[in-house]
């Protein structure tokens, strides 16, 4: 397994080997699926759209609907305007969504298709909407694409129509599973806060079996709700990389103040999320949530010896792994390698934001570790070859390293292509933290059981 990866690390400058990211449009497609009655549309050649649909389908095991402009060479040279206009006409005529959300690819971006003017000159049926986001694949990652499309929702839809802001909060959950969106909504509900979540893929990509196929499932943020987000008192952007831009845009456009929080993974980040709601709406934390938190801490204390001091490597999308890194330090683990493929800064701004954030978490925990943005799994594997770890956490692609180096492996993040159920269940909130804890514990203890000599094999652990 991965026998061609040498231990000796050499400087590379030609690109990526085994990336820990993918390209923008798939994130935009995912975000667009979080709008009710929406058809995501990929403005480029059709290969992108098929790849993105395939990949999302494999992760969610649910239908993923999206259309494409199907560029040919002619359109690639002379512009894809006609293709987009034909698409808009056909999509509304054949698939009748309420809204189309157009994203771009490296093809239409390199050509420089002017999407807003194309949309303006397209035939859009009465009462229907077309929004767009530019999602050049040669910038950032799929997380950037999610962020750009979410920002596009605000730019096109959100409006400030009331003089006084309503007692409601906007929650932008970031690039997380429907199970997490449900958990975050559950917590907000328990707090008694009125909220608008967008995008929201719960009920879309975790839809139930009913014997009927619905092209537009029950879930998804309603267009009216995204509009009304402009009237909210506050926006909580969960995750800097996936959510902050949309929140800032909402602040600019509709004067809704925003706060950027960590994705609520683990005790501290969940506490912070609830404390923010508590303060904003002067609502006490309900007993049920306090009980959940107490249960989580109880388990952490009871089982600390399962995790304490274990060296762990974590890779994946920045918002998720920042919070995850914080959580595992709370278990007494040592996250010695933390790596994302997504660039760690802003376009034109400083590039080391991710590294700094991880370093500060590690410093607080007294852990010596490496943090890397724009990294790849080839690099992560080489680090592990040089100084091994006790546990690997990341998406499905990590299984090759886990097998090659015989490391217990916990699947977390996007995509998970080789296991099921995970998109339904949360890793966020106190309940999600319990689930993570169980996964980590199971992985480590399964290994202890596997490796133990007969005489050391324990009944109670």
């Amino acid at each position, binding site marked *: *397994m991965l026998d*061609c990866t040498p231990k000796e690390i050499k400087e590379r*400058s030609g690109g990526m080997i085994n990336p820990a990211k993918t*390209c923008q449009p798939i994130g935009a497609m995912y975000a667009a699926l979080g709008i009710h009655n929406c058809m995501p549309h990929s403005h480029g050649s059709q290969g992108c759209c098929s790849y993105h649909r395939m990949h999302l389908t494999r992760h969610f095991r649910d239908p993923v609907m999206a259309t494409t402009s199907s560029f040919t060479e002619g359109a*690639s040279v002379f512009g894809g305007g006609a293709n987009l206009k034909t698409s808009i006409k056909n999509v509304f005529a054949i698939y009748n969504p309420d809204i189309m959300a157009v994203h771009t690819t490296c093809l239409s971006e390199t050509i420089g298709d002017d999407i807003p003017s194309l949309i303006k000159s397209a035939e859009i049926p009465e009462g229907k909407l077309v929004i767009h986001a530019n999602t050049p694949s*040669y910038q950032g990652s799929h997380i950037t694409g999610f962020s750009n499309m979410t920002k596009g929702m605000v730019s096109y839809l959100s409006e400030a129509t009331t003089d006084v802001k309503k007692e409601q909060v906007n929650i932008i959950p970031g690039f997380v599973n429907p199970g997490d969106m449900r958990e975050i909504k559950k917590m907000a509900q328990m707090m008694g806060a009125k909220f608008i979540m967008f995008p929201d893929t719960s009920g879309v990509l975790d839809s139930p079996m009913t014997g009927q196929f619905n092209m537009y499932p029950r879930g998804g943020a309603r267009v009216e709700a995204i509009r009304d987000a402009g009237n909210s008192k506050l926006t909580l952007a969960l995750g800097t990389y996936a959510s902050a831009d949309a929140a800032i845009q909402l602040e600019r456009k509709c004067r809704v103040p925003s706060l950027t929080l960590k994705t609520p993974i683990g005790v501290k980040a969940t506490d912070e999320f609830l404390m923010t709601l508590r303060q904003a709406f002067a609502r006490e934390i309900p007993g049920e949530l306090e009980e959940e938190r107490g249960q989580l801490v109880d388990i952490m204390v009871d089982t600390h010896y399962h995790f304490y001091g274990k060296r762990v490597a974590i890779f994946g999308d920045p918002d998720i792994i920042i919070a995850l890194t914080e959580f595992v330090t709370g278990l007494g683990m040592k996250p010695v390698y933390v790596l994302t493929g997504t660039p760690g800064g802003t376009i034109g701004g400083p590039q080391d934001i991710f590294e700094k954030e991880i370093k500060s978490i590690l410093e607080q925990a007294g852990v010596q570790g490496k943090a890397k943005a724009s990294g790849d799994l080839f690099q992560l594997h080489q680090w592990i070859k040089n100084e091994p770890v006790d546990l690997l956490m990341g998406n499905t692609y990590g299984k090759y390293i886990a097998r090659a180096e015989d490391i217990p492996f916990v699947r977390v993040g996007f995509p998970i292509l080789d296991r099921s159920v995970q998109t339904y269940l949360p890793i966020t909130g106190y309940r999600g933290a319990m689930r993570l804890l169980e996964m980590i514990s199971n992985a480590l203890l399964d290994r202890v059981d596997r490796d133990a000599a007969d005489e050391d094999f324990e009944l109670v652990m």
Partner: protein
Amino acid sequence: MAIDDKTLEAILNEFPAKVKRSRKKHILIKNSDAGPQEIEANTRTIPGIMTNRGCAFAGCKGVVLGPLKDMVHIVHGPIGCAYYSWMTRRNKAKSEDPKKNFLSYCVSTDMQESDIVFGGEKKLARMIDDVVEIFNPNAITISATCPVGLIGDDINTVARLAREKHGINITAYTCEGYKGVSQSAGHHIANNGLMENIIGQGELEEPPAKYTINILGEYNIGGDSWEVERVLKEIGYHVQAVMTGNGSYEDLKNAHIAQLNLVQCHRSINYIASMLETKYGTPWLKVNFIGIRATIESLRNMAQYFGDEALIKKTEEVIEKELMEIEPQLEPYKKICQGKTTFCFVGGSRGHHYQGLYGELGIKTVLAGYEFAHRDDYEGREVIPNIKPDADSKNIPDLHVLPDENRYRLKIPAERMEELKKKIPLSYYAGMNTTMQDGSIIVDDLNHYETEEFIRILKPDIFSSGIKDKYIPHKMGIPSKQLHNYDYSGPYAGFRGAVNFARDVSMSFITPAWNFIVPPWKDKPLLEGSIEQCSEGVCPVDDDKK
């Protein structure tokens, strides 16, 4: 229920007029009384129709080049194209030297905005240097993606310079995603490149064994090729090269010495098959190792080609032995499958190949089609002279080869060749339409709307296609079988593959979960026996609550 012209018309009437005009030409109701029926295929996709098609890059790197295991395949582009084609097709491979198997690696120049603005040639050259230094592969390919053509990166020159610098075979493929109208363009581009730069570069002058063959258009999905090769070896064949499942640069460069080329997937590899015939005089035989009857027929045709009595006898012995093994295993599955119907919509060859295997299990194909096949895959190779090239595919270059001065030789005498052509499909493919039953539907580039409509009317018992549409019939309570990746199972080819396929299909019919779709409370009234009282305005349940 079958679909007649009127029903079809009604389905198409839901389309805007222009879309309807186009789609009408891509759909046939098979009618053998009507003589040869013409279908339109390999034309551009209608924007916004929700096609299942992919792009030329997928056809070139993803399908044809990617499986070659001892080569590193560099994708020159932003990260997505390399990422999505990273281990997602199940073209299995095993190497004696694990340090010469690069299939679990995804290598991309990961172009950034600056590469789009200032060009990515330098970064590509650096990536080649990195790859040679780290991996020391036997050869390297470079595949272009959409923006590469637009910004004018000259990947051929980069490849040539790197070849001079590193002394290994490094070749470039201009398979930008927008070329042609589908994956098909990528097959053609890959075929040209392999023929021009790799096949025939080896030193071998004579076949290493008595019956030396190549298998073309076989990608070893789920181990298909290994199962076929197992049987071929037992009969006594020597497989020189497989294009390209479990294939290698080392085998491929000597592919010119084979005495016969077998063609499994006509669409993706017929260019190389024809070129090998022109350049080296090697005939090709259309085979099909999916399904028991098709496998037997293919084996017999091969034996007939070589015409050796011992080989013919051995072929029959092996067939008999294999049948003895699998027939009892198939019995229980046939009972489960008998009388059912299926759709068979796959890329460019399996839409045809699986119909026979389904038929052997008692499952009738009521609709079949291809994403990106050409008219010859539907109607047979005789229509090739009548296919008009259109603007979208004119820019895919045809490679013209000439007979090799030293290596061209007739593998069998010309007269015998002509005799054989009357009996077996030598350098010929009859297409899918001939084997379809009257009244069945043939659809080219099936889209989502049509999928739903055809399912609604034809109510197939199982839906066979790919991952993007797998869960759509599932939601409707209809099992589905992925015929691209076999739902992570396989092999499905050859004798033992047929048993695997029968087991998997049967399993999806009888899995108990289908019985749970309707919750019990949907079948039972909430208030048993109390409905009359309620309707009179007095409801005892409400009273109880008070």
